[in-house]
């Protein structure tokens, strides 16, 4: 069936908002033909009022298209058989303020007809994952926007969806939470999920998305793989450890011979990285907080839940009976970059929630067949996803070689640090990681 080749497919989807008299007033979406493949993270971008959210609402049957139609997971989201496979986080969390965090998840779990045991175990796992276990019985109405987003995300995951539709998932969230969500999305995609991500935070989109589409005036302006769209083939960036002035002069000289310009400066640490470092240190010192706790160790609780004697718990969490992934490093990559705080120390078998949540048999047509190798997470990332995140890549050796080739062996003088090279379009923080 043709429609099944794409998780989301729209055909000349058009939405015109009429005024009170029924006259066509605003064309919010105009002849949109969106094709999102299975197991793809698709970034849906565009300025305010470009029609992103309207498109999502049409996909979710909250609005009826004026013309055209949309297929989501091969059908309509009005069909419960389809909507039970979807997780949706709207642009605002729209949660019932009088329910506690736990009651909120319980309510949405009940709408999926989840059995009580499954529901309870998932609620515990999700609360732990989003760092709100300590506030599980607090009313959502008293939460900050970021905390509400966390619960919103948790409710979108309660059914272990095949397709996740996220509208501004990181808005209002602190940098650690943002980082956590990005990592979560990568893990979900690695496990075969399809993700449609709407965001104005372009750095986030760039970090996680395989393909992006930019909408303007309700029409798709450009669409394609992130790498191919952003790569500047006529530019080159070199990042190294400390170099002597002589070496720098030689580099300038070599580059001058290539008849191109050159700018050499000392790189700055990214604020996001600096922030994470400070907060991680405060958490390690167990400073009290009334807000969300980014333990960054979200696998700990689930590891206990998913212990081998209780295989059913894992199964219930992911909704499928499958082999648990072998032990491996499932801590978030961002933590690996930091001096490990005491709280972040885990046993090797301490499985991450992300793995448990995202683990699925890779049966979909476009899903890579092999689960990640726990011993070599970086390699797995590279082989499974051509658009791999640079932090997973063992970059040092390769880049040392390139530098040596460039400098005629001077790179080896930098014995106290790594010498790296990267494209300008690659995030600097990832290189440091």
């Amino acid at each position, binding site marked *: 069936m043709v429609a099944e080749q794409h998780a989301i497919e729209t055909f000349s989807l058009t939405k015109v908002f009429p*005024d009170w008299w029924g006259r066509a007033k605003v064309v919010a979406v105009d002849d949109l033909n969106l094709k999102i493949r299975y197991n793809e993270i698709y970034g849906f971008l565009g300025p305010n009022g470009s029609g992103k959210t309207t498109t999502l609402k049409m996909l979710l049957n909250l609005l009826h298209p004026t013309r055209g139609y949309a297929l989501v997971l091969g059908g309509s989201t009005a069909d419960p058989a389809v909507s039970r496979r979807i997780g949706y986080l709207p642009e605002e969390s*729209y*949660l019932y303020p009088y329910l506690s965090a736990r*009651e909120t998840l319980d*309510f949405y779990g009940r*709408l999926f007809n989840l059995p009580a045991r499954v529901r309870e175990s998932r609620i515990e796992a999700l609360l732990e994952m989003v760092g709100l276990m300590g506030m599980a019985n607090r009313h959502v109405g008293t939460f900050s926007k970021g905390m509400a987003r966390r619960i919103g995300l948790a409710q979108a995951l309660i059914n272990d969806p095949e397709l996740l539709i996220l509208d501004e998932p990181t808005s209002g969230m602190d940098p650690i939470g943002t980082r956590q969500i990005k990592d979560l999305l990568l893990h979900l995609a690695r496990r075969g999920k399809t993700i449609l991500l709407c965001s104005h935070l372009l750095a986030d989109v760039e970090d996680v998305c395989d393909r992006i589409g930019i909408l303007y005036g309700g029409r798709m302006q450009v669409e394609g793989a992130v790498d191919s769209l952003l790569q500047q083939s006529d530019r080159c960036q070199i990042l190294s450890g400390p170099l002597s002035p002589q070496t720098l002069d030689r580099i300038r000289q070599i580059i001058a011979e290539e008849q191109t310009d050159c700018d050499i400066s000392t790189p700055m640490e990214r604020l996001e990285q600096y922030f994470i470092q400070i907060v991680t240190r405060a958490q390690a010192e167990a400073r009290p907080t009334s807000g969300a706790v980014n333990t960054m160790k979200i696998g700990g609780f689930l590891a206990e839940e998913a212990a081998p004697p209780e295989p059913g718990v894992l199964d219930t969490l992911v909704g499928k009976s499958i082999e648990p992934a072998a032990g491996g490093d499932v801590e978030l990559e961002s933590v690996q970059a930091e001096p490990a705080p005491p709280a972040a120390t885990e046993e090797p078998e301490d499985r991450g929630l992300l793995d448990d949540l995202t683990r699925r048999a890779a049966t979909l047509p476009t899903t890579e067949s092999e689960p990640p190798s726990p011993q070599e997470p970086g390699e797995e990332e590279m082989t499974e996803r051509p658009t791999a995140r640079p932090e997973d890549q063992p970059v040092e050796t390769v880049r040392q070689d390139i530098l040596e080739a460039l400098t005629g062996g001077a790179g080896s003088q930098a014995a106290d640090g790594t010498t790296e090279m990267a494209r300008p379009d690659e995030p600097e923080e990832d290189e440091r990681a």
Partner: protein
Amino acid sequence: MHRVWAVARNTISQGIRMRVAAVVIVLLLVLLPLMGLTAVGDRTLLGRLQTFVSYGLSLTSLLLCLLTVFVAVYTVTHDIKRHHIFLVVCKPIRRYEIVLGKLLGVVALNAMLLAAFGAIIYGLAWVMFYTANAPPPQARQARQEFFTARVRLDTKIDMDRLQTQILQEYNRLKFEGRIPEGMTRQRALGILRSEALNIAKSVPPGYAKEWTFQNVRVSDPNTPLFVRYKLRALPSPVDDQVFSQWRVGDFRTRDAAGRLTGAAVPRYVARRDPLRTFVELSVPSSAVADDGYVAVAYFNDPSRNACTVIPEEVQLLYRSGTFTGNFLRALLMIFSRLVFLAAVGVCVSTWLSFPVAILICMAAFVTGTINGFIVESLDLLEGPLSLLYTFTIKPLLWLLPKFDGDYNPTRFIVEGRAIGWGFLGQVYLTTGLIKAGLLVLLGVLIFHQRELAKTAV
């Protein structure tokens, strides 16, 4: 069903957190005991109990009706306005399940509150009875006329015969040319009908009037019969009282000497009665003949009264059940109103905003409360207006429930009158099932088609 119940539970949580719910609960918790303490009535124990339960049940019914409307409208319109509904409709739940869940939540919340406040009223009534230290006759009267459930048999005037007489009279007057010029036939018949009714009801001095009742089946021979009536007098005496002489028994057969030969023991009661007030007299049930026949006769003694007495709404009552069962049925009658109002609220909220929906619900509630009056008034319309009314307003009025007249459970409880299960079933069938069902169906259809995220531009 799980999903419907999940939405209903959420609606209950939403409802009990509304300030209007808190106000209603606090008001009733304060006012009901206060009314129990301050109720006076006619200073008898029966009067106090009747006053308390009458006001208590009416207030509870009124406040819960208002609360139902507010909760039903708020829970739907607020979810749509604040977009909470987005996260619900994108889950695997059908839209009709959401509407049913909302309705079920409102109804369940009301059932809980009605049960709680009904129990408070019931308990307070018994507390009043046991702590009143009333004289034994008053306590007996309260037991016999309030803490009971009695069947009521009404008397009716044979309207068909009366109508024939009226027509004959009209034709005679017309033949004699005594109908005033310009007076329509309808108007003349109306005047004649009014006069005929007065004559049919009136008992001039020296005359007597008899009403007969069939199929009187008193289950417990130790319980008395009650004759309930209201008197008018023309001209009205200065002290607003008339002398009444009543006979109750089987007067069908007499022997040659004029003595009654029936097995039933006739009873004679003579008393002074206030005018324009319902009063009851009790007679032993042995006055009823074996075949369930009993006659009630009123004699206007010319030596005591100089006026024409008009006995109105003469009724016969006898015990048929317990107060507890009857009180429960009264609560169920009130509950049927709440079900209907919840259906109206949920229905209109699926497509209207909060203020408009509230307005329509309140209009439905008020119209239901005076439905009988409106229907009676509009039935008097004549000519083309009558046709217009028959095909426009009358069907609408039918769709609305009746909360007044015989559909007001408070009157039953105050009179110690039994609410029949059959009658209750009929109320639930028409109000709770057909009318509310049609409204819910309409709401489901609208909600199913509605674009929940639609914005005005």
